């Protein structure tokens, strides 16, 4: 018997698929799924339905007894040409795109628990580079197509249509429906201001019409560090010291008056042959205690082990959604807790979201909102100090004294604090961050094709931080004072957008028009205060009113506004010829009234060659081929809010410990304390002529699909010129403070390409695989800089400058090797401090003397290219994914080499084990300079000695997932997956990089290996 069969066709991301052809094979009755993926056909039991879709293997279903509804899922996503891509206030089908847009496969990253969705994108978007350390709060630096300007290079984020400069670490990763990266100007220009460094568009999930579901995701990870540095242990440190001292005695600065290492070192004594011409060390004698008071027993502390831990990371989210023709709603909560691999660090994040929309008058009026709330708690520890200290604190220092106090440095050591103490004494200091971000909109269809939409958004973010500084004694370091500090700040950004869209279909010609207006206002205020003299050293007591002395109060604020008008028209003819034009006029409060507004135009054209008959007929293997060209301009205004004004500030006094005071208070009365007379400090010179910085970009692109879209790919070549770069250059000293002035003074060019290639293969019905690789490269060049500011950049400021070179150029001395014979020392250029075992610098100008004129450009830190390779293999219900990412070329300044290779540059610190392989007459092949305690040769100078290859290849992620859906058939479950995965499991680096991780050359918070087990359920 025949019956009505209806259902929804969707892709593996539960995204409805419109345009799927449904044919009843027996009757040849056909229909096409609508915008919601819905279909309705008449068929009889036993007949066959064939669901076909461009580029995908059709799905064939027999109509069984009782079949009334059929929900079809296309698991393969061989084609995503009909995928809808959000491109600036509107959306387009991917096949119609003419700009360089990367649609991220959110599925690939949704289970990677990095605390920030963007962090997981490293290597997945061609041309996008992520700089991040391993700190739990997930902060990252993102660069698209290299360094574009000398000021803010951060991309603009658009979250549900609202621009924001805050990253994604505050957003629940599970709420993200899609991520699109707009790399070129033709697509980004519609965002005008702030879009010069690219745009990342995030759309959060919404309820879907006709569905009701519960999603639950949970994962737990274990994280640890697998690339430790190797500092010396106690005995080794003694050996290195001894070697340095006897080197100095034997052929170094104190040949004339040798000093016995046992005498010169306050801690170790040595059993050695006392023969300065052939020194032999029998043993290093470690004293029982390192201090005269016998409170600190000599230890062999591995400080890194003391501060680090294997820790747990947990991630849970629950999403409930509902959809009907009258409206959709989605509610989600998330919990993220990363304990960090440095003890007592961590990040706890709570997210909640409510997204809903309501349809009235048959869908002609739509009212909707998104609302998200984030609350994050982060202990504020001096983590960069802690990680560095764990490498340089002397191993002989015990963590604790014999009576339970803190171990610390003693005579002859540097003033380096006990990193365990820094952890324990700061763990009570927790920063609380809250953010409420949401928007509400009304979308009215005035005519079926004419929509008016108005959106109001508010983004309210603030921090509250209260800290207690505890008194301590650690070796010769101490501070008897306690102090409470409290600080709060808030930033509120209000955005109001109004837009009108009109679709016009005239036969084969399709038009789409957009006109809009946007107002953005940003306000920021902060307040902080501190006080000392608390009666109790207890965080629960430590409020400002408990402080009795040294009460200090500060506060400030700022604000800025943007006002923009924009329009866009897109045109397509017969799906073959595509064109779009955009114009945006932006006004910014940061510029003077003459230069407030700037107009940013853009245009692009595309040709879908594959739609031409001559291709269709003659080259059937081409399933898709599109040529694209785009050109456009974008702006940048991200500078100090008041740069057009000359200003004075009432700076009373600064905390001048690490930098000088710019305060204006002075004790004219000579009382020594109390409130002081004070004045004003000049803080800047205004430049009322400031104007927008402009980036002009051309993009040549090609998209293709071959063999029924088994092979797909894209190629983009771009030229990006930034002019009138807003710089605040260093200036002539005689101007004094406040001589700093913003100028539109520099130009820069980036050229590069990005390629993405993908192969989808099915070996058998059960075995599928998909490989996606990308490679990208760019070259940066500074094309203009005012001549008097060149000194502020690499080079000598006159004949050797960064002009015509990458802004990331390295400039310094060239190391030729080590002086290995007296003759070599005698016959080389004059070099103050030269000697046996010392670094030999190249006399570049051949004038017989090594001085500052013997420096040159040594290369750049820009990589030659970056790449990523993602492989996904499916077998029945198993799926294995592994993703490699790498960087090839580019120099990295390995600053830690100061300590791994030298005993002289920080003689009171611990050093690296490489010092044990340093040059001696008995070890003449070594390339590590002879150990010495006196750096007479200035070997810390910027030279090729510290510049190493930044190349690496990392197994960023590997995941094995098992789909339980078949196993759990009996339960009505839509989706059930268990998976195990690991991040950063393997790492390959160039052998010329002597540190552990060229991705983290400053040895900031270590990047951990994260191993995760997780489940996803949808009901």
């Amino acid at each position, binding site marked *: 018997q025949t019956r009505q069969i209806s259902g929804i066709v969707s892709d593996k991301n539960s995204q409805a698929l419109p345009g799927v052809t449904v044919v009843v094979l027996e009757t040849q009755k056909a229909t096409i799924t609508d915008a919601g993926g819905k279909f309705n056909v008449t068929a009889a039991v036993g007949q066959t339905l064939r669901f076909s879709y461009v580029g995908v293997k059709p799905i064939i279903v027999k109509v069984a007894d009782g079949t009334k509804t059929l929900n079809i899922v296309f698991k393969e996503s061989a084609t995503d040409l009909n995928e809808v891509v959000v491109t600036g206030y509107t959306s387009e089908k991917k096949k119609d795109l003419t700009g360089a847009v990367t649609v991220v496969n959110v599925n690939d990253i949704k289970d990677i628990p990095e605390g920030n969705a963007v962090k997981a994108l490293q290597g997945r978007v061609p041309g996008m580079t992520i700089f991040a350390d391993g700190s739990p709060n997930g902060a990252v630096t993102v660069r698209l197509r290299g360094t574009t300007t000398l000021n803010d290079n951060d991309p603009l984020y658009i979250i549900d249509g609202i621009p924001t400069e805050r990253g994604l670490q505050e957003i629940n990763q599970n709420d993200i429906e899609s991520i699109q990266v707009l790399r070129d100007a033709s697509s980004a220009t519609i965002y005008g201001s702030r879009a010069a460094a690219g745009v990342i568009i995030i759309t959060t999930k919404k309820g879907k019409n006709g569905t009701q579901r519960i999603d639950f995701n949970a994962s737990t990870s274990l994280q640890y560090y697998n690339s430790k540095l190797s500092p010396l242990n106690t005995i080794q440190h003694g050996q290195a010291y001894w070697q340095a001292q006897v080197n100095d005695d034997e052929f170094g600065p104190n040949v004339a*008056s040798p000093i016995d290492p046992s005498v010169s070192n306050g801690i170790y004594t040595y059993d050695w042959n006392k023969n300065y011409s052939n020194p032999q060390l029998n043993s290093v004698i470690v004293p029982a205690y390192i201090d005269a008071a016998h409170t600190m027993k000599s230890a062999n502390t591995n400080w890194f082990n003391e501060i680090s831990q294997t820790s747990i990371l947990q991630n849970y989210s629950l999403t409930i959604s509902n959809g009907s023709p009258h409206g959709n709603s989605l509610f989600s909560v998330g919990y993220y807790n990363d304990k960090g691999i440095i003890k007592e660090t961590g990040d706890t994040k709570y997210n909640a979201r409510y997204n809903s929309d309501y349809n009235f008058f048959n869908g002609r009026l739509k009212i909707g909102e998104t609302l998200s709330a984030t609350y994050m708690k982060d202990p504020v520890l001096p983590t960069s100090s802690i990680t560095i200290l764990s490498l340089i604190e002397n191993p002989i220092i015990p963590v604790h004294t014999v009576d339970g106090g803190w171990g610390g440095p003693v005579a002859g050591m540097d003033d380096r604090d006990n990193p365990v103490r820094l952890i324990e004494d700061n763990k009570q200091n927790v920063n609380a961050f809250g953010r409420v971000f949401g928007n509400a909109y009304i979308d009215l269809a005035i005519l079926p094709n004419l929509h008016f939409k108005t959106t109001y958004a508010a983004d309210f973010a603030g921090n509250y931080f209260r800290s207690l500084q505890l008194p301590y004694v650690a070796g010769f370091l101490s501070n008897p004072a306690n102090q409470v500090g409290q600080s709060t700040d808030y930033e509120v950004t209000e955005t109001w957008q109004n837009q009108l869209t009109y679709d016009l279909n005239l036969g084969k010609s399709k038009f789409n028009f957009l006109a809009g207006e946007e107002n953005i206002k940003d306000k920021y205020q902060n307040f902080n205060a501190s006080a000392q003299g608390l009666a109790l050293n207890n965080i629960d007591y430590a409020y400002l009113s408990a402080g009795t002395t040294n009460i200090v109060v500060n506060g400030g604020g700022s604000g800025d506004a943007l006002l923009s008008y924009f329009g866009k028209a897109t045109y397509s003819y017969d799906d073959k010829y595509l064109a779009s034009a955009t114009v945006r006029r932006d006004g*910014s409060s940061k510029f003077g009234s003459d230069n407030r507004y700037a107009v940013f135009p853009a245009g692009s054209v595309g040709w879908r060659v594959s739609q031409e008959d001559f291709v269709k007929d003659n080259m059937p293997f081409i399933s898709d081929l599109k040529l694209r060209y785009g050109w456009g301009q974008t702006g940048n205004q991200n500078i100090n809010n008041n740069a057009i004004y000359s200003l004075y500030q009432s700076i009373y006094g600064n905390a001048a410990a690490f930098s000088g005071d710019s305060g204006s*208070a002075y*004790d004219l009365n000579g009382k020594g304390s109390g409130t002081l007379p004070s004045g004003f400090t000049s803080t800047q010179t205004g430049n009322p002529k400031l104007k927008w910085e402009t980036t002009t970009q051309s993009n040549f692109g090609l998209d293709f699909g071959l063999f029924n879209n088994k092979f797909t790919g894209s190629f983009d070549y771009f030229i990006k010129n930034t002019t009138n770069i807003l710089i605040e250059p260093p200036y002539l*000293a005689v101007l004094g403070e406040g001589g700093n002035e913003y100028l539109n003074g520099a130009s820069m060019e980036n050229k590069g390409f990005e390629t993405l290639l993908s192969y989808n293969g099915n070996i058998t019905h059960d075995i599928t695989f998909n490989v996606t690789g990308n490679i990208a490269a760019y070259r940066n060049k500074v094309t203009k800089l005012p001549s008097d500011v060149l000194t502020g950049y690499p080079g000598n*400021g006159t004949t050797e400058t960064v002009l015509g070179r990458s802004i990331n150029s390295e400039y310094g001395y060239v190391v030729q090797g080590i002086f290995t014979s007296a003759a070599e020392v005698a016959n080389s250029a004059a070099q103050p401090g030269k000697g046996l075992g010392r670094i030999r610098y190249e006399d570049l100008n051949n004038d017989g003397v090594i001085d500052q004129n013997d420096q040159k450009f040594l290369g750049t830190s820009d990589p030659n290219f970056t790449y990523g390779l993602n492989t996904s293999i499916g077998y029945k219900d198993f799926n294995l994914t592994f993703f490699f990412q790498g960087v090839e070329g580019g120099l990295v300044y390995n600053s830690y080499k100061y300590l791994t290779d030298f005993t002289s540059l*920080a003689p009171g610190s611990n050093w690296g084990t490489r010092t044990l392989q340093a040059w001696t007459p008995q070890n003449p092949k070594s390339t590590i300079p002879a150990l010495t305690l006196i750096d*007479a040769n200035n070997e810390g100078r910027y030279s090729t000695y510290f510049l190493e290859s930044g190349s690496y290849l990392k197994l960023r992620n590997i995941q094995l997932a098992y789909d339980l859906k078949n196993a759990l058939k009996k339960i009505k479950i839509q989706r059930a997956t268990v998976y195990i995965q690991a991040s950063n499991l393997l790492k390959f680096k160039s052998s010329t990089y002597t540190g552990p991780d060229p991705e983290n050359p400053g040895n900031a918070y270590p990047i951990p290996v994260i191993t995760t087990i997780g489940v996803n359920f949808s009901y």
Partner: protein
Amino acid sequence: CKKYLDETPQGVVSSADLTTPANTDAMVTAAYSYLGNDHYTYPFSSMWAFGSIRSGDAYKGGGGSGDVVEFNEYETFSTNVITNASSDAVFYQLYVGIARANTALTLVEGQSVANYPQKVEREAELRFLRGHFYFLLKILFNHVPWIDETLQKSAASYGAVSNVALTSDQLWTNIANDFRFAATNLPAIQSQVGRASKGAAQSYLAKTLLYQAYTQDDNNNVTGIDQTKLAEVNTYCDSVINSGHYSLNPDFANNFLPQYGNSSESIFSIQYSKNDGTPLGRLDYGHCLDYPMNVQYGCCGFHVPSNNMVNAFKTGANGLPEFDTFNNTDVVSTDGYSSNTFDPRLDHTVAIPGHPYKYQTALLYDASWARAPQTYGPLLSMKETVAYTDPSFTRFPPFMSSSKDWEIIRYADVLLMKAEALIKMGQENAALPLINEVRQRAMNSTALLVQANGQPTSNYKMDIYKPGVNCTWTNDYAWQALMFERRLEFSMEGYRFFDLVRWGIADTYLNSYFAVETTRTPHLAGAHFTKNRDEYLPISLNQINFSKGLYKQNPGW
């Protein structure tokens, strides 16, 4: 909608807001404030990094030669470079002080006396301050651009002034004119003790004229001495001496103890403060590296008296310094503290193992308090530090310092400047009582130099110069005595190097110092003073480039 983009700057004032009399006066305070805005990377309070560790009186200290490598470059001379960051920093910082003075001068000159009765006095104070900052620039860099309030402030107009637009002598004259104006228009006594007085201006004028009197050629060679200037030095010193407002403190120690700030010996000092509403206090940040590395303190072991300096405090059997032989035996390496006799100023100046630190009999300085004894030996400088129990002491980990005022000119300097002028004018006999006044006070300053058991810390044996009894007071001898007295009286106070350059002996003095001292401490290996170059720091490459080549480099660099 136009107004939507009008954002009023928050929490700031514009230059138009400063023209009220009250705000103008506040800008005078801001100019004073810069006296105390130095920092350990560019210490322009005592100038220890520029004048002490370049003089053979002190080593850099700290954690090895690479710890603040800029100062190591100063100490060795041979490694100094035109890109030394501290040279650039101090150049900039002193011009900030000048800019503050010029800004305030412009505002003050815009006031009427009716609205702003203190107008002329404030002008005088500001020119005093400007003179001070220019004086420091002059002795550091020799050729610097002269920017004053007559020049409209802009990058274009300031950038058009070359550092060689004026000759060295013209620069001195401009600086002297600032002090001359101040000396004429300042009151003898200021109700607010931190303000410059007539005596301060006269003293600084004398100091300026004394430097100017030693004429130099274009290659830094001292070519002669201007008797007219010397006579002026004598006159202005006399005005100060005869004013009746100043006298030497009874105890030398008082000059370096916080409770005696603004004493009768203080002619002009930097007023530091704490518990004053600033985050850490308006502290003496320029000296915060100079404390020892023990639990009572903890950082950073910089500014270490040289062995040569300690030896200079030795006295002969007659209680007088041993001009030629003091350095023949080394006190430090032979631990000769008990086998020699000393000028008491040794224990006021140098922290010595086993001796009370900063007069604290219960707190004996120990060799282990030094930062890198294997490199810089066991000593430390003490004049700039305070007892950890003193209320002025403040920690701001890892650093520490105090709110103790720092003397820019003290009365002893006036006495010895006058003595120097007199000797160079051939009136050594008139100089004798001045030198002896300084010595007599030093001799008397042993009350605090005692150990816990009440015994003197060292063997003090000191006498004044008694011609015919313990010396023959010839002009040449008097000159030796004057040079030595300045060294001992002001050792570690930061100006010794500039004395050596003024006298034209920097090259011979320092190279003979290096010849001996290198055998005592290896860190000086390779140190060498290049005559006709190292008398002045090079103009920083940055500034030459920022000036688009208008600034000319100093000779030899």
